[in-house]
């Protein structure tokens, strides 16, 4: 597979902002589909009775859903085969009906061994401005 449209090393500049991506409002169906794909059986993300009994107002988003979308957002720019590291840290919880914006920028360019690498900082932000997931990604880039 060739990563068509993946930028070359020389054309990438530190500080470059990726065009953000906005997804439709979160639904419990999204959580269930993710949990099914990931074998995550935690009822907290789809069982209202369970979530309320545990002290939450309702089921809340499975953080790995937005983390996965955020990684896919970065991959869209730098290529599926080129990712070498991805870290997601979970900040405030997101809830059904939240609208999440995925954004990021290039924060570093470096060479390690014989590989040219770019580091990205990424955010999945709620409509309130609150950060749901913070992400960091590293990609190899063809010269």
């Amino acid at each position, binding site marked *: *597979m060739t*990563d068509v449209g993946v930028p070359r090393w020389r054309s990438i500049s530190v500080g470059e902002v990726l065009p953000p991506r906005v*997804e439709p409002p979160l639904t419990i169906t*999204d959580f269930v*589909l*993710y949990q*099914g*794909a*990931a*074998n*995550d*059986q*935690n*009822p*907290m993300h789809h069982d209202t009775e*369970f*979530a309320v*009994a*545990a*002290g*939450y*107002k309702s089921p*809340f988003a499975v*953080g*790995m*859903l937005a*983390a*996965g*979308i955020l*990684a*896919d957002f*970065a*991959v*869209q720019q730098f*290529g*599926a*085969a*080129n*990712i*070498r*590291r*991805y*870290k*997601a*840290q*979970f900040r405030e*919880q997101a*809830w059904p009906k939240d609208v999440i914006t995925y954004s990021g920028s290039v924060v570093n360019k470096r060479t390690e061994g014989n590989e040219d690498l770019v580091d990205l900082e990424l955010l999945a932000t709620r409509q309130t401005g609150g950060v749901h997931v913070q992400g960091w*990604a590293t990609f190899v880039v063809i010269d």
Partner: protein
Amino acid sequence: MRYRRERHHRKRKGRSLHGEAELLGMTGEPFEMLVEVGRVRQFARAVKSSNPAYFEGWEPLSSPTFLASSSFWSDPKNSPMLRAGLSLERVLNGAQEFTFHGPPPRAGTRLYVQWRVDKAYVKQGKRGGTMSFMEVVFEFRSASGELLAEQRSTVIETANAVGE
């Protein structure tokens, strides 16, 4: 893993069943995982991807966070959370980190997986009281033992629910 509805039998509130020292170095049973084309596509759809790299052909690449689904291939009793005796009502996913020593595994790749508890520590939280942290590292190797990918999973157990 199967989640039980009743509370886990716990002696002390806000503590995991095992002490931090006991958790450190704990390892899971090794297991094998086949990266399957259907699961790769299902996962990519679930994270709203439309990238052809995950959908074209019979050996597509897997998504960056796909290895989070490895528990499909492991005995539920082999789950780190279960083995550590964490209470599911108060467990939060703190962070997940994936490292690839090459492109992410393609469909058709057989992986040899094992986890270990790499770190265990306690912190004082602002809202949730005492927080117990556990960092579990999953190693994904080829049949010849080459390290292909790693997943570092940070699990937090709070003393109380921390919902809004």
